[in-house]
């Protein structure tokens, strides 16, 4: 190992325990000093990164009396919140139940964090268990499933999957118990989707800027009911 190679490694990992790095330190004082400088800089970086967090309040801060205006503000905020909640509840009671498509979108939004482009896939055993709970099987290798949950949807447990496609992630809700219906297209707030009749119930595919019909057909041919 020459000095340049040493400095490349130590520049990325100052605490490297690579035997070649340690051996080089023994006979090269300049590089040994460089390593010490990098380690000292790392200690400084650590101190710089270790910022105070909200949870680190001191005892005095915790025990100190609140600001004079705070209680009044909190009461006002609570009043506004209760009024809004009461209004929302009244509105909910007076509004007809949301459509199947709306329920699917709401459900997807609830688990929005699953809609990420990733190369990670869920464990095969877990996927099998979730699908088996709904009496389903997926042909091995038919889709790259990055998220799988057994979710409550309209009074039943359904498999909620996220499938990675070349166009990005697609949410798939496999709803075994649903009234027979024709294919229904969804287009709302930049979200495309389709509700497709399945051997049992329907399958819902939702995604952004992607051929949802193609994804639905692929899954329907891969799912065994």
């Amino acid at each position: 190992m020459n000095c340049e190679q040493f400095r490349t490694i130590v520049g990325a990992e100052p605490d490297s325990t690579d035997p070649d790095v340690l051996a080089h330190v023994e006979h090269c004082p300049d590089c040994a000093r460089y390593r010490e400088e990098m380690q000292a800089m790392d200690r400084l970086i650590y101190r710089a990164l270790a910022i105070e967090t909200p949870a680190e309040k001191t005892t005095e801060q915790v025990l100190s009396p609140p600001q004079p205006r705070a209680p009044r503000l909190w009461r006002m905020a609570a009043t506004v919140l209760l009024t809004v909640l009461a209004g929302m509840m009244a509105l909910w009671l007076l509004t007809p139940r949301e459509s199947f498509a709306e329920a699917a979108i709401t459900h997807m939004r609830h688990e929005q964090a699953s809609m990420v482009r990733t190369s990670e896939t869920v464990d095969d055993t877990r996927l099998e268990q979730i699908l088996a709970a709904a009496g389903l099987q997926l042909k091995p290798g038919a889709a790259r499933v990055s998220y799988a949950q057994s979710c409550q949807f309209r009074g039943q447990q359904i498999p909620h999957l996220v499938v990675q496609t070349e166009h990005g992630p697609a949410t798939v809700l496999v709803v075994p118990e649903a009234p027979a219906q024709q294919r229904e297209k969804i287009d709302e707030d930049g979200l495309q989707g389709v509700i497709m009749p399945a051997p049992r119930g329907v399958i819902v595919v939702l995604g952004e800027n992607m051929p949802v019909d193609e994804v639905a057909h692929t899954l329907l041919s891969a799912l065994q009911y």
Partner: protein
Amino acid sequence: MPFRMDVFRFVYWLCRDRALAEDVVQETMLRAWRSLDSLSDEKAARPWLLTIARRELARVFERKRLPVVDLDAASELDPQALAVDDRHEVEEMRRAILKLDVIHREPLVLQVLMGYSTEEIARHLEISVAAVLTRLFRARQVLRQQMLGSDGTQP
């Protein structure tokens, strides 16, 4: 909640905005709680939380155009965020880290603050180990140059 402090610091150093970091941490903990059954190994809790936080922050960035972070404001006008140590060197280093590109800042935070190995960083960022080493090397080179340039002495 264990690891909340780690998650906050990780998010802060990605977004450089304390208020946003607090929001993201709150949402991260909520999402983590909802999907707790997907955590198969308790020992993997911290990387699991950091991954959720990273996704949540990405979601925020995707959904709304965030204001440009004023680095002077981030390092000077928010003493609560940064005033853990009043030593000049630490403050200078914070300023230098705030100026790093996020692709260099994130692996550095994971390595130095979180104690991640190079392989763990590669898995977290979904890039190769070689790419991680390059980014870490580059990050330290930039910081070293800035620190040397700021007062003419070595750190």
